[in-house]
Structure formats: structure tokens, C-alpha cells
């Protein structure tokens, strides 16, 4: 997190994330945490094909929503400055936090991309009709059973790996908040809730 300056809302106290970064974080984070069990369910209900079909469509819709938000967020993250890390962090922890956050940021883009690759290479050719509103075209690839299988397993591995990493990330945030009692988590909360009463 280079630099100290933050372009974001005036009412953010120094050292806090801007409101845009905060909204992106919680929106993408929560959708991502819902999307993993939803993906799991698409496989768990294989004996109920009608339900499975519907769950697939929900999973694809939420997935494309995450992809769109995550791309905007990535751009935001690259174009604006993030607050400097809280002071007094051990070097290893800072490095670990940076790595984990960079990976999570990347995975929120790459995991739905691999999902899109499944939909695009599946011989079933099922259109992606996001929330029954917008058709997202298939990527220009040749459908085949093998490609479908390859992207499916990559998608599953990456999604579950991202889930594990997110758990470590959440654990670290809670550790800071409840045990170390520092401002790490408050920096990621909306200004009104966390800061106004300090006036």
C-alpha cells in the first residue's frame, strides 16, 4: 500500500480506506463468500436436474456480477492510492497481508474467468443469460469435453483455494480487531459507523 494520500471521500479519516474501496471490498467479498457454497451446491444436487439447472444459472449470474465488480475494483485499486498500513506491524505480517490481499484481488477476477471458460467450452452450449437480463457471449473457443473438464477442475481448485485464503484473511482481520484491538478492521468499515462517534 504505497503512499499516504487518499483521494477518496473527504469524511474518511486519515489512514482509512476510501468509501469506494470499502463498498467494493464488502460487495465483492460477500458475493464471493456466497458464490463458493452456491458453486458447491451445483455439484451436490446432481440427482435433481431441474434444481441443478436453476442453481447453475444463479451461479453464473452471480459470477458475472462478481467479475464485473472485481474488474472495476482492480482498476480502482491500481489507479488510486491505498492507505498506508497500520503502524508497528511486524515485517512478515505486512508481507503476508500484502500477498494475501493481492492474491484475493486477483482471484476475484480469475475464478469467474475460469467459470466463463467452462461455459464457453462446454459442449452443452448453454447461453449465459445473466439474471435473465443480459446475454454474455461465449468466449471464442472450440467446445470440447476435454476443455470443459480442464476448466472445470481448474475453476474448482482456484475457487476453493480462494475460499481458504479468504478464511485466513478474515481470521487475521478478526484477530486484529478482537485480540490485538487495533484499527485494522475499522479502517475497512464505512466512516459513519466507525468514526462519527469519536468526534
Amino acid at each position: 500500500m504505497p503512499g499516504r494520500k487518499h483521494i477518496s471521500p473527504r469524511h474518511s479519516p486519515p489512514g482509512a480506506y476510501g468509501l469506494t474501496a470499502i463498498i467494493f471490498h464488502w460487495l465483492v467479498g460477500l458475493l464471493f463468500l456466497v458464490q463458493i457454497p452456491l458453486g458447491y451446491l451445483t455439484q451436490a444436487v446432481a440427482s435433481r436436474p431441474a434444481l441443478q439447472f436453476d442453481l447453475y444459472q444463479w451461479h453464473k449470474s452471480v459470477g458475472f456480477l462478481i467479475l464485473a465488480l472485481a474488474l472495476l475494483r482492480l482498476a480502482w485499486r491500481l489507479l488510486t492510492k491505498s492507505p498506508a498500513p497500520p503502524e508497528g506491524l511486524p515485517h512478515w505480517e505486512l508481507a503476508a497481508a500484502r500477498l494475501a490481499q493481492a492474491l484475493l484481488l486477483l482471484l476475484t477476477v480469475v475464478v469467474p474467468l475460469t467459470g466463463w471458460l467452462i461455459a464457453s467450452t462446454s459442449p452443452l452450449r448453454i447461453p449465459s443469460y445473466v439474471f435473465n437480463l443480459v446475454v454474455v457471449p461465449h468466449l471464442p473457443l472450440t467446445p470440447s469435453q476435454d476443455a470443459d473438464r480442464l476448466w472445470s477442475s481448474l475453476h474448482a481448485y482456484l475457487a476453493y483455494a480462494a475460499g481458504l485464503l479468504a478464511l485466513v484473511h478474515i481470521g487475521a482481520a478478526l484477530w486484529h480487531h478482537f485480540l490485538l484491538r487495533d484499527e485494522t478492521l475499522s479502517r475497512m468499515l464505512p466512516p459513519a459507523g466507525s468514526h462519527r462517534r469519536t468526534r
Partner: protein
Amino acid sequence: MHRRSIIFGAAVVLLARPAPAANLDDSVGRYRITASSRIAFTVDQVGGGGLSGSFPQFSGTIDLRDGALERSSVTFRLAPASVVTGESRVDAFLRSDAVFDVARHPEITFRSTRVRLIDASSAAIEGILSARGRSRPETFTATVVRRSGNAVTFKVTGNVLRSPYGMDVGTPIYSNIVRFDMTINGRRF
């Protein structure tokens, strides 16, 4: 979404053809629908394209009556389990309880109730389509394509909604409308 009745319509058409009365006499009789017939269907999908397939297993008869076309009739049955789309996972899905539920409803049937002439070579065949435990009136259009001796060929088309039969899974990605395009070959018996 299967239509079998169409054939009937075709028969009617036959009757009506060039010189109605004369041709009627020629064609009157009972016909068995032969295995060379083709029951094809298409379901459009959002964004273009669609799902097409056919049902290779079916049977039926056409009864072309003398005089009043209205008294002619068609019966048709097909085995939804025979569906082929070229993609085995789609076939399995269609056979499952998501769509045809072939384990509990192994047959789809059509019985004509009325035949109406549309023009010299085509007729509307009204009848009752039964699928997945539900029966509803449906209409198909039959056109005579060929007649020769003991054989007759009809082109039969018709649109059937999936939802009234509890088969609307996948809408609106896949259209609610199944378009049938059938070639029905009858042989006198």
C-alpha cells in the same frame, strides 16, 4: 411436445386436393405411420440458435374417411425416452424428471378430435396431446407432400408450449415454445 396428429391433417389435405371428390376416393383408408417418418423439434435459445432433436421411436395410424373429412382421425404415440439431440448429457436431462420424466411417463400421445381443411393441400388437425400426465388441446398443420398408391407423405408442423405440461425448465434461456417439424409417411394397411 410431441405431435402426432399432424399426420391426420395431411390426410385431409389429400382428400381435398385437385379434384376433391375424386381424390378422396383414391386416398380413403387406414394408414400406418412408418418408421421412415421423422419427428424433429427445435427449441430456440436466447441470443440465437437453439436446441434441436428428434424422437426416433413412435407409432400411429391415420384413418382417412370417405366424405366428411371431419370424421377422419389420427392417433400417434411416441417414446420420449428415445429423444436424441446429439449431446448425451442433454438427452439424459430431457429424459429426467426435469423434463419428460420417462420413468413415470413413458409415452406421449396425440389423438385427433377434429380436422379442418385450410386449403387444397393442407389441414389443421386438432386433438388432445397428453404428456407427463397432463392433457391439452393442440393443433398441428398437415400438408400433403406426396401420394402414390398405398403410400402418403405429410409434412406436419406445430408449436407446443412447454409450461402447460410442467416442462418449462430452462425458460427463458430456452424458449417456452417447441417447434415441431415432422415428416409423416403412411402406408395403407
